[in-house]
């Protein structure tokens, strides 16, 4: 019996390799594949060709080139992206995530760690425990990896020294004691020559432990997911005809059988499992990891995103919670800015309300922070657009892991791990007053809304808004104007002009505008409001049609020429920092309700455009 046929009979180990640049991760994986005889002859031919072109090992074949798959990676001799490799021995099948070492690719390392149950951390025997070693270990710990192999590589370059090995292992164990690992197993290896990778080395008689592969084949990383509380995230409602209504999904934890009572976690509605349907017939029971379709005994309202649980094991349901957040986007995370959150099968708007601290991934120290930049990790408070069933990440990934997505670019911007729900979420309830917005608006015969003027400083926002407000006022429409002057001198006196403060400024303006709309008024807001995300945030605060975005489009040259307050002159002289259009960006609206090009036109002509638009919407003015 050769290796391959045993494949699949045995359990699978998913692990990742991490370590600093040039520690030999890719070489190690190449060695594992090569020694497991999983390299085919034609692959070897192309490898030999590649080695001569890009290799770093002279005339020998360069095993690292087996795994560095992207052109840029081979040219630069580094790993950029996580790559997945497959091999098997008679004892186990393996999926290896080969992850990059550079700090600028921390997000890719976290991606590899999110699906792994063990990490092989490489350390260069000549260099010992480095900053990167600490960072990778911390990220592994944060992502919930509990079993670690410390592979002290290039041991051949330190004369197979036992003292060096012992010193490095001692340093590592001391550092890692706070990271909550269940096992830390050190192995001295040479990936390039194969010592202690799959073959016991004759060069290190002092080492009596297992080879790396022996350890990977035998280490116990089982997580008893089936023994945990039942969690079934509904993925898809299967309704092929009127007689069948099933809830398809993968059991995330626990087990279930027909007749068992279940409850929809968010709504509290209960029923019993009627059938466990699969293409191969109904099952008498099912457990974590199985993709099934459940039917219920009662007609209960269940949709994608709902989670079925047992009545005695309901998770907390909250719209505010604390979580660790790894930021993965080039554009920094700003508290108050709106993102989309995916947790389980739920998509909901979400924002960070405060950063409790940022973790220095190299020293594990906690620092105050007002933003999270690419590859930074923070512990934050979150506010979501709806109440969500939540478990701590370490107890349940299905209800404790989430991603944040940028609302404009749709990039995956953050990865979160829930720590705990916040109590205030369950204790604050909205008061319901019997006199509402509709009643107030009807009393004065108004159509409440926000006219949001955005554009560069000096573009003419306030001038146009002023003319519009006069016309509305003459027509008997209750109005109110919010602009930089009446806001920044009072409500937002504590804020400056950094990106963080601009976000908070607009958040407050948005909330105030919403209250005025609630009071039945037409609110004219004139703010530079340079970021799409914040304008979107205000739009989302209001009802459909209540937010009218008006882009006052004046070329920056014209604004500089006008410069009514002398601000551009000072900004260009370096006396004002973070000035929009000079050293701070302006993101023009992509789809404003109204796009006013002011060039060569009077303020009266421009405001007439706004008034025409309002009349078209049925507002007499």
């Amino acid at each position, binding site marked *: 019996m050769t290796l391959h046929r045993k494949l699949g009979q045995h359990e699978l180990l998913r692990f990742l390799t991490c370590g600093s640049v040039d520690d030999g991760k890719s070489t190690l994986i190449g060695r594992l594949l090569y020694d497991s005889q999983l390299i*085919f002859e034609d*692959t070897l031919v192309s490898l030999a060709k590649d080695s001569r072109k890009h290799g770093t090992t002279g005339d020998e074949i360069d095993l690292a080139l087996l795994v560095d*798959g992207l052109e840029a990676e081979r040219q630069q001799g580094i790993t950029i992206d996580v790559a997945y490799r497959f091999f098997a021995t008679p004892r186990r099948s393996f999926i290896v995530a080969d992850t990059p070492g550079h700090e600028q690719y921390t997000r890719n390392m976290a991606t590899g760690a999110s699906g792994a149950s063990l990490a092989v951390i490489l350390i260069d025997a000549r260099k010992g425990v480095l900053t990167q070693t600490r960072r990778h270990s911390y990220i592994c710990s944060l992502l919930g990896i509990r079993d670690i192999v410390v592979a002290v590589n290039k041991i051949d370059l330190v004369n197979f020294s036992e003292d060096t090995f012992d010193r490095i292992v001692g340093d590592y164990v001391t550092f890692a004691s706070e990271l909550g690992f269940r096992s830390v197993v050190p192995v001295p290896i040479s990936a390039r020559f194969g010592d202690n990778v799959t073959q016991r080395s004759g060069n290190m008689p002092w080492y009596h432990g297992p080879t790396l592969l022996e350890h990977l084949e035998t280490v116990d990383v089982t997580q008893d997911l089936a023994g945990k509380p039942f969690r079934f995230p509904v993925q898809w409602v299967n309704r092929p005809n009127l007689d069948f209504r099933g809830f398809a999904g993968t059991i995330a934890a626990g087990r279930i059988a027909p007749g068992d009572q279940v409850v929809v976690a968010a709504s509290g509605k209960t029923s019993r499992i009627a059938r466990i349907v699969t293409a191969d017939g109904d099952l008498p*029971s099912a457990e974590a990891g199985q993709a099934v379709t459940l039917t219920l005994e009662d007609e209960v309202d269940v949709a994608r995103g709902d989670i079925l649980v047992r009545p005695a094991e309901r998770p907390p349901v909250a719209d505010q919670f604390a979580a660790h957040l790894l930021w993965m986007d080039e554009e920094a995370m700003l508290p108050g800015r709106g993102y989309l959150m995916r947790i389980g099968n739920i998509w909901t708007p979400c924002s960070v309300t405060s950063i409790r601290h940022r973790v220095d991934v190299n020293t594990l120290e906690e620092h105050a922070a007002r933003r999270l930049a690419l590859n930074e990790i923070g512990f934050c408070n979150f506010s979501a657009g709806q109440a969500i069933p939540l478990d701590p990440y370490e107890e349940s990934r299905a209800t404790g892991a989430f991603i944040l*997505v940028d609302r404009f670019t749709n990039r995956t911007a953050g990865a979160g791990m829930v720590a705990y729900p916040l109590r205030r979420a369950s204790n604050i309830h909205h008061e319901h007053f019997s006199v509402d917005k509709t009643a107030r608006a009807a009393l004065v015969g108004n159509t409440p809304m926000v006219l949001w003027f955005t554009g560069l400083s000096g573009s003419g926002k306030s001038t146009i808004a002023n003319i519009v407000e006069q016309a509305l006022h003459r027509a008997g429409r209750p109005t109110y104007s919010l602009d930089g002057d009446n806001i920044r001198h009072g409500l937002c006196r504590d804020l400056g002009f950094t990106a963080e403060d601009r976000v908070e400024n607009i958040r407050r303006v948005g909330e105030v505008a919403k209250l005025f709309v609630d009071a039945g008024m037409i609110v004219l807001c004139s703010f530079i409001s340079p970021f799409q995300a914040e304008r979107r945030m205000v739009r989302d605060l209001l009802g459909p049609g209540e937010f009218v975005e008006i882009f006052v489009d004046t070329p920056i040259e014209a604004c500089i020429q006008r410069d009514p307050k002398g601000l551009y002159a000072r900004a260009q002289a370096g006396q004002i920092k973070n000035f929009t259009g000079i050293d701070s960006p302006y993101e023009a609206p992509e789809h404003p309700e109204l796009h006013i090009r002011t060039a060569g036109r009077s303020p009266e002509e421009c405001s007439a455009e706004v008034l025409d638009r309002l009349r078209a919407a049925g507002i007499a003015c």
Partner: protein
Amino acid sequence: MSSHTGTATLTPHLARLEAESIAIIREVAASFRKPVMLYSIGKDSGVMLHLALKAFAPGKPPFPLLHVDTTWKFREMIAFRDMMAEKVGMELLVHTNPDGIARGIGPIASGSALHTQVMKTEGLKQALDKWGFDAAFGGARRDEEKSRAKERIFSFRGPGHSWDPRGQRPELWNLFNTRIREGESIRVFPLSNWTEYDVWDYVLAEDIPVVPLYFAKERPVVKRSGTWIMVDDERLPLEPGERPQMRMVRFRTLGCYPLSGAVESTAATLPEIIAEMRVARTSERQGRLIDTDEEASMEKKKREGYF
């Protein structure tokens, strides 16, 4: 896992792969406006189709199948395709690049690189645009090729179906980012974590129909560039003195017949194919002439929109 009835024959490893793939396929149906499943008639497509049928039982998969026909597929493949579509009762869409036909593009006249670019890559993009699909399943596996090993399960494509390997979205846990804007799309690879062995083991365990070309049989072939090319029709020009000979051959991978090399083999049943793989010393793509055109050629083709 204790409780399988119908899938009692699956090993825990295959059962886990099956469940993972079913979850991926359901996710697409739940998240996209108009998905489609690329059906290329090979064993991987066969497994993917089988998984789709399982994912939505007792209903049918809520998307059609799409075959991009280069007009150079083996005749047996086309017959098998039509038989399968009929059997599973799903809509089958077939598209052939009309510009390529007009220009007389083919693997022999134009060379493999241009043929693949025009008839496969361009043809696929035309088809996706023509029907407005926003998500397309492909049967590619990460163990096939180096640049595939780096690709996401939900792989984002920008306008014009472009792939930016360095700007891929991080993919954590099973929390797939399914958000796209108008003109963008997602390629989805439910078999990402399967190996060639897993595919054949699963075909055997689940009794999935595959094209007879995978099984050894006496076929008319000629030797070209060290591999056996089947003379599937009269369009393959014979070189002076070259005569087709009957050989026991089979195919490990299927594509356009002039580009698909056969291996000499006597494996005529699934267990024999699997036994043969145990001792195989060449990779399955070795018989594919299109991958060796140039270094990193797969990454290049994928950036341009190839599957």
